[in-house]
């Protein structure tokens, strides 16, 4: 097995980067192993758990199911690039306060999904929040405090 | 995973026995079987390709007769792996022959198949269906080989 590396150009958290990564690598592999962007987690590598969720051109996708080659010329955003995002900052604060953070392994993916929901629907019902987060598995909280946090953030942001 | 079945052929038991004990005949009847190489009287090797949708595998198998009661029963064991050992397959097989009232032969077969490794992580249900289909295909080929039709 010869390791062939391919050079890709993409925008990562607002900066142009060139990265040499294994041919056919997933975005998750490239972010973690080649770029040391570690907020995106490998929880299942099957797209089920949601811990690797990142934004590509502003849309949440699974980094583990996205080929880096497909990100050529596109904008990738991870939690590392969320500084200064008002919606994210509000969500983060509410997650801390509500107890929605336990082991924290799912938390980044949860927050990226929640932010996407609030962008699309600033005043979601609790049911809508649960539906939007149904692709992010949390094994610690039972979801209750996470839903509380997202609803609390939505309320604060919509005032 | 257990695969079981039976079929009847309008051929005498001794003839059926000879065919079942002939690796070349078996190789020709097993779906996806590419090359059969006799090791000795009690064993042969075969390459078998299987495909389930986009998933393809090619196994190098060794079939060993563990015990036989001529013209009645064969206990055999199939074992093998994919080229780079990504999956391992083993199967314990029993074949029993008996005479039918019409002078033909009834063949009862049972196999306990285990696939581990990359293919072993795949859903159980589809494999069972595929295995049943392969068995049915084998029976059809075998009948054709004996010159009888269903």
């Amino acid at each position, binding site marked *: *097995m*010869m*390791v*062939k590396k*391919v050079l890709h150009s993409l925008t990562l958290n607002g900066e142009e980067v060139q990265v040499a990564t*294994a*041919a*056919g690598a*997933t975005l998750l592999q490239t972010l973690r192993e080649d770029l040391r962007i570690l907020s995106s987690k490998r929880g299942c*590598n*099957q*797209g089920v758990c*949601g811990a690797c*969720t990142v934004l590509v051109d502003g*849309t*949440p*996708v*699974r980094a*583990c*199911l*996205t*080929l880096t*080659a*497909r990100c050529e010329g596109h904008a990738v955003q991870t939690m590392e690039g969320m500084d200064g995002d008002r919606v994210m900052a509000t969500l983060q604060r509410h997650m801390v306060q509500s107890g929605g953070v336990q082991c924290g392994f799912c938390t980044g993916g949860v927050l990226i*999904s929640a932010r*996407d*929901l609030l962008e699309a629907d600033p005043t979601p019902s609790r049911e809508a929040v649960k*539906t*939007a987060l*149904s*692709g*992010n598995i949390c094994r610690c909280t039972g979801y209750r405090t996470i839903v509380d946090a997202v609803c609390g953030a939505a309320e604060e942001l919509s005032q | 995973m257990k695969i079981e079945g039976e079929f009847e052929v309008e051929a005498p038991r001794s003839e059926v026995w000879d065919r079942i004990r002939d690796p070349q005949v078996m190789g020709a009847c097993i779906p996806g079987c590419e090359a059969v190489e006799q090791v000795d009287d009690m064993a042969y090797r075969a390459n078998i390709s299987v495909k*389930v*949708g*986009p*998933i*393809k595998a090619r196994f190098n198998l060794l079939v060993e007769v563990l015990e036989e009661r001529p013209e009645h029963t064969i206990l055999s064991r199939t074992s093998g792996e994919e080229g780079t050992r*990504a999956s391992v397959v083993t199967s314990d097989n029993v074949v029993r022959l008996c005479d039918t009232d019409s002078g033909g032969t009834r063949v009862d077969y049972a196999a306990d198949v285990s696939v581990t490794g*990359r*293919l072993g*992580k*795949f*859903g*159980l*249900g*589809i494999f*069972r*269906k*595929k295995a049943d*289909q392969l068995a049915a295909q084998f029976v059809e080929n075998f009948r054709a080989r004996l010159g009888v039709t269903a």
Partner: protein
Amino acid sequence: MTEVLSPLTVDDAIALLVEHDEAMPLAGGATLIAMRNASLVEPSHLVSLDRIAELRGIDRTADGTIRIGAMTRHCDTAACAELTGSLHVLRRAAGMIANRVVRNMGTMGGAVANADPAADYLPALACCDATLEIAGPEGRRSLSIHDYVDDWYETALGEGEIITAIMLPAPVEAPSAYRKIARVSGDYATASCAMALDPDGQGLRVAIGACGPGPLRDRAGEDALRGKLHDPAALAEFAGRLVALADPVDDVRGSAEYRLRLIPRLVASVLSELAPQKETA
């Protein structure tokens, strides 16, 4: 090690698929990359279809037929306002696939090509009498959805062929719905049911998912049921015919026996949603 190729036209994509023995077409990747990550498939090349303009978009043609480009993502299908009435079932099915994030990735063409018997599109498309547009080394062809699935995960798609679009007959004013039984939200179906009523409310079209290699559809049975939707005996007979067509698996989502038990119950459940029996009945 997989090389990724990104052709700009359907012809180029097919040429690449033909050129490389172990190449596979890559649509949204939601299933194929997951399979590759698990080493279930080990393609030498992935021919990415994401830069081919022809495969994108949902259009309504002059005669009302709706064309869904193969690379249309589930989220776009789930939100498509053109899919009304008899085609609403497809929107409902799209919205129940996996979860919001995966629906941003997966495509209808990819899902149909993969032909997972427990996935949501095939029964919905069978209920809609969809047609597949297929391109391959021998040229282009159309294929009825009813002739598409050959066997477990085996379809009529030949070597080097890809689905370019899914064609749907013009929607008519009639209710349709999709229901799936699954262990948890976002799981593949244990069993599912896509149903559309005839515009006059006297008949139905129904397709059952996850109970055989492809969706179960019994058009003769549907004809026999016309005008008798609320006749319990006729309905039971119809459901019985669907059960007879079924060939379900035993797997971790449920036994074959359970799936057979679910078929008539799903039919009754979805029918009561679409055509509630009148109080006086």
